[in-house]
């Protein structure tokens, strides 16, 4: 897939959290040196285990957190330069978030309409009261909910319907990029596909880009154009999704792929029992090396950075970059 017009880019983004008591010098590196770009009309899947920093990346992009280091550029302009309340509102309307838990993200004491209309009032000030109602009905229809759903209370909706409300709210702000943090992981299997199809529809028909954060590679493959794999706060590998899945370069990506349950394939042998490290005051070196069967001396001394190994396909692995055919875990 050829790169589309760039919508948002992040350069060397880092976010550290101080942990422990007031005098503690311990710093948790939730995100380190993350650079990524999201094009127009593109779904980028950000995949990783819990604690890998993928939600922190989303929050950095949504400006919930200020980055410890690095820059975010949106539409060619640095996001850090956005200062006025009006511009901040505009940015959060263009880059809204959809959250994991549809049960916690809608106010239970009001009809669904309440939140929708408030959102429109705040972000689309040009609309009259009547137009707001029309717009709410329109976005509800787009996400596959009847306009009559606006009158329901959240408890009357199923999980899948609530998650559609989340996307409808995001859509009402006329977004450029939706940051969707595990939007389907709390839903039943039979409902998930409908939401994934909705995400593809928003890209194809509404021209919205989506950063799809998930731990489920199979669903990422189903909707996404590109894949970014994170491990312990850093990007391990990124590239066009079919290329990465067909020939994963980073041992961690190979491990992830080998662990995906697939009834249609024979059971692969996964012997790995390791766990991702807690990245507190990290020393240089590859963070995956303790689990990696291919680790060499360099891996303990030098932090690998992403390098392009095939067109658009990058991996941060010394062994792969040395030109070796990496086969750490068979899938």
């Amino acid at each position, binding site marked *: 897939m050829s790169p589309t017009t760039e919508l948002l880019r992040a350069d060397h983004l880092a976010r550290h959290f101080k942990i422990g008591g007031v005098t503690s010098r311990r710093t948790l590196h939730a995100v380190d040196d993350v650079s990524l770009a999201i094009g127009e009309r593109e779904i980028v899947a950000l995949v990783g285990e819990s604690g890998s920093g993928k939600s922190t990346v989303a929050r950095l992009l949504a400006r919930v957190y200020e980055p410890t280091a690095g820059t975010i550029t949106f539409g060619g302009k640095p996001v850090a330069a956005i200062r006025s309340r009006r511009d901040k509102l505009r940015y959060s309307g263009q880059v809204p978030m959809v959250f994991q838990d549809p049960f916690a993200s809608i106010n239970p004491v009001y009809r669904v309409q309440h939140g929708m209309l408030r959102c429109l009032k705040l972000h689309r000030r040009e609309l009259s009261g009547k137009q707001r109602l029309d717009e709410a009905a329109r976005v509800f229809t787009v996400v596959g909910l009847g306009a009559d759903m606006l009158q329901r209370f959240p408890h009357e909706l199923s999980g899948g319907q609530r998650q559609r409300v989340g996307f409808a709210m995001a859509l009402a702000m006329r977004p450029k990029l939706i940051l969707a943090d595990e939007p389907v992981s709390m839903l039943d299997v039979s409902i998930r596909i409908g939401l994934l199809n909705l995400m593809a529809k928003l890209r194809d028909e509404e021209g919205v880009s989506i950063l799809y954060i998930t731990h489920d590679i199979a669903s990422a*493959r189903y909707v996404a154009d590109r894949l970014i794999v994170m491990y312990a706060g850093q990007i391990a590998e990124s590239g066009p999704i*079919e290329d990465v899945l067909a020939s994963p370069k980073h041992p961690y990506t190979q491990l*992830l792929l080998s662990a995906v349950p*697939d009834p249609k394939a024979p059971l692969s042998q996964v012997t790995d029992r390791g766990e991702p490290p807690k990245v507190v005051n990290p020393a240089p070196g590859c963070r995956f090396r303790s689990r990696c069967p291919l680790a060499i001396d360099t891996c303990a001394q030098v932090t690998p950075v992403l390098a392009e190994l095939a067109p658009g396909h990058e991996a941060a692995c010394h062994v792969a970059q040395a030109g070796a055919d990496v086969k750490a875990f068979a899938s």
Partner: protein
Amino acid sequence: MSATPEILDVGGLSVDYVLPTGDVRAVDDVSFTVDRGEFLGIVGESGCGKSTLLFAVAQLLAPPARIAAGSIRFKGTNLVGLTDTQLSAIRWRDMSVVMQSAMNALNPVMSIGAQFSDALRAHGKPSKQEIAARSAEVLRMVGIDPVHLKSYPHQLSGGMRQRSMIAMAMLFTPDLIIMDEPTSALDVVAQRALMAQIKDLQQAYGFAVIFVTHDMSLISHFSDRLMVMYAGQVDELGSTREIFDRPRHPYTQGLLEAFPSIRGPRVPLKGIPGNPPDLARLPAGCRFRPRCPLAVERCAQVAPDLYQVDAALVRCLRVGDASMSERADEHRSLTQ
């Protein structure tokens, strides 16, 4: 110990939630057996009654839930109606339960070792040395260093907590371990490692497993038999391989087609339209009919029974139709 291979025989079990607005039947006339050393997977969406069923089998139901009918024969004894004292003798020793969230199931203010010793002392008077030896042994069985007997639950990772729950369930090497989505809080790599470990332990120690999950693909390589539940009823029951290769119930087919794959061509999937029914307002006839792509008029009038088809049981009126068999075969070619 009885001579039959069945360790558990659940017959016509129904569980009601007694509510002021009327009783709601969450589990409706469910029958199944588990053989010694067998791995039975129970699959279904939220609200299908799988957890209620599991709580009933473990006799952990609390009001407003109540067993309305049926029997649960475990090693020949009907557990329905036993007193707490009688049940205590069985729990941990003959049958143990691993819950979904180990963080909630483990006591946060007691070390792992103290909780193990509690369970051990509930069945006899072991010496301190015996407790220490057995606790260390079961932790080693699940691949955790026994130094963690001194650890508190919050000091362990999610995977380790879940493994220590399984270690605790194995303290007495029971005949049956019931697991309620034990891997759903884990990442895919940890999930896979835990599944493989459960299977290894099962083969080494010969206990039977009832494994409840919403994720069919997870147990495809691990369970011997599979029971698919929908709206409180068994929809399909058969050998795992058979159900994956030739799913006969439209709901099972829909579930299997709802999983995107990381291999093969990218095909558009439809999932299953609609939502599971409200158990208090069930549709007439077949409960899956409103979501079923193959429903005919008859399905709205007649509530289907479980019909025997080859070695499987299937709750679908159309299961004998030629078009249905074709569809099952089609599924087979689709997935291979």
